[in-house]
C-alpha cells in the first residue's frame, strides 16, 4: 500500500524535455498555475501539434505578400486617381500589415494558451476559444476511468498526433485532448499516474 508521499510521486522514468514553445513538454520547469497545490507537479504539458498551425501561417504569408504584388500593379494601372495624397501609399500598407500581424498574433495566442496539463494529482484543460470566451476544466486522477486515443487521417499519422479521450467517473465532465503529439506516450504516462493513485 503506497503512502501519501509515494502516491504523489511522478513516474521516475520521466526526464524533463521540451521547451517553452513545444507542444509536448515533460515535467516543465518554469510553469505555475493558479490553483496549483504545494506538492503538485506538472508532469506533462500538451498543446495541439504545431502542424495544426500550418493553415493560418499560410494565410498570414499570403496576406503579407499581397501588397507586394498589388501595389505595383495598381500604380502601373489607371485605376488610381492622379490626385491621391502620398500619405495613403504609406499608411494603407501600414494598416494592412498591422491587421495581418494582429491576425497572426491572435491565432498564435489561441494555440499557445490552449493547453492540457497532467499533474501528479489531476488533469487540467485550458481552452481559449475566442477573444471573449475561455474555459478551464479539471478532474482528479482518481476519477479517471478510461483513457483512449484515436489517430485518423494522413496528417495525424505522418506527424504522430491524435485525439485523447478521458472518461471520468459519475457526472464529472469527460475530457478531449485534440491533436496532441505522441498520444500513445501520453496515454501510457496517464495510465501509470492513475495506477499510482
Amino acid at each position, binding site marked *: 500500500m503506497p503512502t501519501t508521499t509515494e502516491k504523489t510521486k511522478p513516474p521516475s522514468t520521466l526526464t524533463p524535455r521540451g521547451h*517553452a514553445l513545444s507542444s509536448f513538454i515533460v515535467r516543465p*520547469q518554469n510553469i505555475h498555475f493558479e490553483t496549483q497545490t504545494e506538492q503538485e507537479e506538472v508532469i506533462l504539458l500538451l498543446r495541439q501539434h504545431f502542424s495544426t498551425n500550418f493553415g493560418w501561417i499560410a494565410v498570414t504569408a499570403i496576406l503579407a505578400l499581397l501588397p507586394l504584388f498589388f501595389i505595383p500593379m495598381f500604380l502601373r494601372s489607371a485605376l488610381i486617381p492622379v490626385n491621391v495624397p502620398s500619405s495613403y501609399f504609406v*499608411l494603407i500598407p501600414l*494598416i494592412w500589415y*498591422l491587421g495581418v500581424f494582429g491576425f497572426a*498574433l491572435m491565432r498564435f*495566442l489561441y494555440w499557445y494558451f490552449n*493547453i492540457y*496539463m497532467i499533474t501528479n494529482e489531476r488533469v487540467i484543460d485550458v481552452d481559449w476559444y475566442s*477573444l471573449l470566451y475561455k474555459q478551464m476544466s479539471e478532474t482528479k486522477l482518481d476519477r479517471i476511468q478510461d483513457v483512449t486515443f484515436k489517430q485518423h487521417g494522413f496528417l495525424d499519422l505522418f506527424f504522430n498526433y491524435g485525439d485523447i479521450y478521458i472518461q471520468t467517473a459519475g457526472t464529472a465532465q469527460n475530457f478531449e485532448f485534440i491533436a496532441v503529439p505522441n498520444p500513445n506516450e501520453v496515454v501510457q504516462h496517464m495510465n501509470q499516474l492513475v495506477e499510482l493513485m
Partner: protein
Amino acid sequence: MNTDILNFLNFAQGFWPYGLVKILMMVLLGIYIIFAGILVREEQLISRMVQMAFSPILRGIVFIHLLAAISIFILALMFL
C-alpha cells in the same frame, strides 16, 4: 431653403472622397485599438491563470501591438 441644400452639397462635394475615406479609416482603426486592448487584457488574465516561461515575452509583444495600433491611429489622424 435652396441655399441650405446648396451649401450642404458644396460641403459634401468638398468632403468627397478623401474625407469619407479618412472617417472610415479612423473608425476601422478605433475598432482595431479595442481589439488590441482586449488582446492585452486577455493575455494578462490567462497568464495569471497559467504562468509559463514565454509569457513575459508574449506580454511584451501584445503590448507593442497595442502601441503600434495607437501610433498608426495618430498618424492616420494627422496625415490622411
